[in-house]
């Protein structure tokens, strides 16, 4: 794997440099080396948080080639980073030639790894980690876009994207009055083609894009070896529920044609009109799934024990989504402007599913009446969500150093849900029509007084109803910012945000507060030295009444987060010697108290003007107050060669 990563890095480097042979000028930066990890404690947790690995690493590559007046292109830029021992790999090529074409290719690969010790883990008290929901997958994304620029009114656009998400994971499956841990394998590919054009008529510009997306996803699962006993250690009606075998396969095929239109232009000298429309028409997703199970199970729905099951299910969902926006931007005077617009969004879905489950070798709870039973479930669902937003904003700049604005938005939401009977757990609240209107008023001011800039804005939302319990009826938000900048010597910055959300309705009693303020200080006493300091305080408190499912009593659900971050760093450059070092300490004293401390250093030594070496070090320590099984301490070292063109 390490050799492969190194080979890929070398090939990318070679590909990037190939066009340089005939180029007029070339600029490049390359950092290539090796990275080591030393992790003690929960290595899965470290990987969940950072994704770092041991091995060769193309830290960064940047090549810019100017093609010159006789070249095929004006400018070619190749960038790559993280190839090898990083959870994220990126590669990007941009080639353009003025008035001819603009081409972009980007490719990325990301490791998607999650293995929390306490998440979905009914056996945590027994010391079994990680939890039962883990993934170790990868996500590839390729995007190609080409716009031809022949001049005149028509510029063709073509594009292609391909996403691939695949790999193993672990999940659980509730069946027969127990939950069983499963190994899973997901493989999903999404392809997207785009064709369109940029259009120009006088002062008017338009972009029309038609796309076609298709997806193919398969999901396989099978009982984790040794997990036959499930999560429930207690017998159910005297029967120890257990699975001898449980496995299934699911495949989903999807398609989504979409249209995207953007138009903008000047109606008169002082009026700019913008319109946009995006529509996915008849998006479809069809799923076929089968699973089989053998063992000892219980079904309260059937009122029987059973020894296995065979299930065939199919589902088909079709959706149409669109969003249209039109607005006018009017320069009333040289210092006063009005922006007014209307946005309408609609999402519609119809779905149906047919589930056929055959329960094998069933008996009633007395152990009598043995037989197989087939249960058929036909379900149809529908939902329709609409949102209309009318908005207006008035911006005034009476003097060059002052900007004032006031805005209003009037939002109407409606949601109709027709659930299938099988979705309804307890009647009420799972279907019907819900309407909500929000009146939003906001205002702000920005002052630019040379070295000092100040800004503040206030927003109030007043809603007439809540669709879900965590919807507010009243929201207030105040934000402020101040900056003092004295040349390149000093920059002091502070921001603050205060948010309050409320729904005092009896039975909901939702009240949430967020107070978040941050400050930063950057000092550059001499050009070679920069010093940074920062402080951040994030406090969140919320409560809302909930009903406990075990006894239907009510109590407030209280959540608190009290985070504080302190950080400092410095950078010193003396000739060909550069050293950067810093540290930060994040402490949370809320519902999930933890400390996350990070220290890092980077030393770069130039051997020649072009060639140098640099070393990187990072220490990361994570401790949870309530779950030491999550803790880790990680040291990451890297040694790299740097090659930079003059």
């Amino acid at each position: 794997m390490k050799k492969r990563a190194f080979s890929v890095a070398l090939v990318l480097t070679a590909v990037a440099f190939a066009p340089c042979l005939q180029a007029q000028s070339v600029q490049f930066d390359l950092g290539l080396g090796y990275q080591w990890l030393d992790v003690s404690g929960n290595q899965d947790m470290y990987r969940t948080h950072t994704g770092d690995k041991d091995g060769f690493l193309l830290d960064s590559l940047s090549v810019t080639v100017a093609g010159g007046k006789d070249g095929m292109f004006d400018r070619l830029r190749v960038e790559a980073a993280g190839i090898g021992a990083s959870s994220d790999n990126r590669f990007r090529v941009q080639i353009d030639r003025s008035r001819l074409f603009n081409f972009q290719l980007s490719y990325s690969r990301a490791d998607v790894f999650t293995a929390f010790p306490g998440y979905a883990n009914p056996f945590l008290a027994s010391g079994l980690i990680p939890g039962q929901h883990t993934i170790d997958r990868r996500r590839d994304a390729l995007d190609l876009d080409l716009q031809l620029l022949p001049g005149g009114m028509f510029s063709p656009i073509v594009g292609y994207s391909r996403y691939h998400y695949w790999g193993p994971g672990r999940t659980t499956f509730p069946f027969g009055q127990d939950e069983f841990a499963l190994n899973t394998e997901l493989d999903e590919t999404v392809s997207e083609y785009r064709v369109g054009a940029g259009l120009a008529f006088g002062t008017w510009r338009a972009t029309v894009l038609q796309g076609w997306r298709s997806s193919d996803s398969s999901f396989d699962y099978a009982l984790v070896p040794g997990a036959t006993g499930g999560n429930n250690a207690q017998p159910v009606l005297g029967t120890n529920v257990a699975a001898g075998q449980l496995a299934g396969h699911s495949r989903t095929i999807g398609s989504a044609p979409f249209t995207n239109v953007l138009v903008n232009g000047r109606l008169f000298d002082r009026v700019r009109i913008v319109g946009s429309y995006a529509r996915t028409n008849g998006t479809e997703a069809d799923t076929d799934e089968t699973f089989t199970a053998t063992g000892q199970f219980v079904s309260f729905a059937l009122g029987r024990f059973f020894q296995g099951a065979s299930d065939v299910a199919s589902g088909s969902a079709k959706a149409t989504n669109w969003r249209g926006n039109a607005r006018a931007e009017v320069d009333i005077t040289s210092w006063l402007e009005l922006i007014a617009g209307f946005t309408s969004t609609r999402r519609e879905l119809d779905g149906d599913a047919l589930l056929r489950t055959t329960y094998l070798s069933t008996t009633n709870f007395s152990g009598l009446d043995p037989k197989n039973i087939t249960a058929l479930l036909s379900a149809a669902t529908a939902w329709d969500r609409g949102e209309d937003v009318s908005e207006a904003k008035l911006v005034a700049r009476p003097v060059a150093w002052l900007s004032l604005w006031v805005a209003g938005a009037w939002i109407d939401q409606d949601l109709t849900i027709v659930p299938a009977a099988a979705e309804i757990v307890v009647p009420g609240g799972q279907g019907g029509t819900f309407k909500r209107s929000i009146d939003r008023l906001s205002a702000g001011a920005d002052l630019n007084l040379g070295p000092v800039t100040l800004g503040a804005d206030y927003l109030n939302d007043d809603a007439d109803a809540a669709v879900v319990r965590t919807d507010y009826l009243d929201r207030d938000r105040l934000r402020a910012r101040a900056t003092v900048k004295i040349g390149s010597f000093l920059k002091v910055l502070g921001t603050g945000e205060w948010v309050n959300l409320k729904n005092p309705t009896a039975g909901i009693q939702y009240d949430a507060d967020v107070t978040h303020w941050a400050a930063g200080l950057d000092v550059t006493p001499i050009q070679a030295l920069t010093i940074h300091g920062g402080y951040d305080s994030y406090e969140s408190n919320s409560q809302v009444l909930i009903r406990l499912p075990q006894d239907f009593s009510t109590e407030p659900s209280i959540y608190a987060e009290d985070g504080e971050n302190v950080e400092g760093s410095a950078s010193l450059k003396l000739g060909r010697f550069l050293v950067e070092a810093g540290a930060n300490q994040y402490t949370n004293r809320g519902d999930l108290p933890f400390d996350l401390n990070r220290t890092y250093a980077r030393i770069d030594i130039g051997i020649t003007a072009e060639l140098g070496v640099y070393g990187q070090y990072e220490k990361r320590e994570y401790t949870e107050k309530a779950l030491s099984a999550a803790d880790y301490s990680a040291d990451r070292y890297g040694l790299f060669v740097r090659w930079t063109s003059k």
Partner: protein
Amino acid sequence: MRSFANTVATLGILALLVPAVIGAANQEQEALPCADCHDTVAADFQSNPHALALGRDAAAGAVCASCHAGGKEHVDAGGDAALIRIPKGAGGATACLSCHGGKSHNDIEPKGVHATAGVTCDTCHSIHGAKRPGPALLKAPDSELCVSCHPDVRNAFRKPNTHRMHQSVGGTSKAGMQCYSCHNPHGRGDGNLKQTAAGEPVCLSCHTEKRGPFVFTHGALVAGTCQSCHDTHGSANPMMLTRAAVSQVCLECHSNITGTTLGSQPPSLHDLRSPRYQNCTTCHTAIHGSNVSPRLFR
């Protein structure tokens, strides 16, 4: 194999289209001797993406004149600085937008949030660029520029559960996500969030498996957004959830006490004191939606 064929076919079409438009004419521009005096700027400007903006046959100084009006008068007056227009601030943005504005949904909005707050093109971009211009001629590399004004966001990424971010935003790799992966700094609207080409929320551009549509959709996806349950910048909680306990995330909506809101009461037997039931998604694994399980079991 089919995907490979598709890729080859697409590249082939692209290759055929490029030569078809070669030979497009360039408009004639007036020659100005800008480089005679501004030799340092002119020398560095050769590596600037703007250098060939008007085509290869553009007259000397034509690119300068395309942004700096009054060049002839400035030259005729022997270099009187008062006669040449220097695009700066909100007015300067007009010059930039004459070429850069309104090409796509994720493009530049002249009345965007930053513009309204007095953040103009030259606040972030070095238009002339240096000898080694960075991507998009940004004054600082990567996302450093964003967090230099948004320290609260920088610190949100100091929390343990975040997207895998770029080094400049607290990540460990130079390949990590950048602010502009999700946000359009030139945009308008709540959070300046980007959209996919199909007009969907930007989250779905990576999390394709959550796209659906689903026969049995979790209502949170319809009545709310991804942020209803997830803190996307950074979270103290696993899976970037808004609450430390999964049951809390769920029950705050699924407690039908008033009878007027969406989300019904789960049945009894879900005893939250038992570890089996504290994580609702242990059973409701397909929490974003399912085509075959009404209760989102698979």
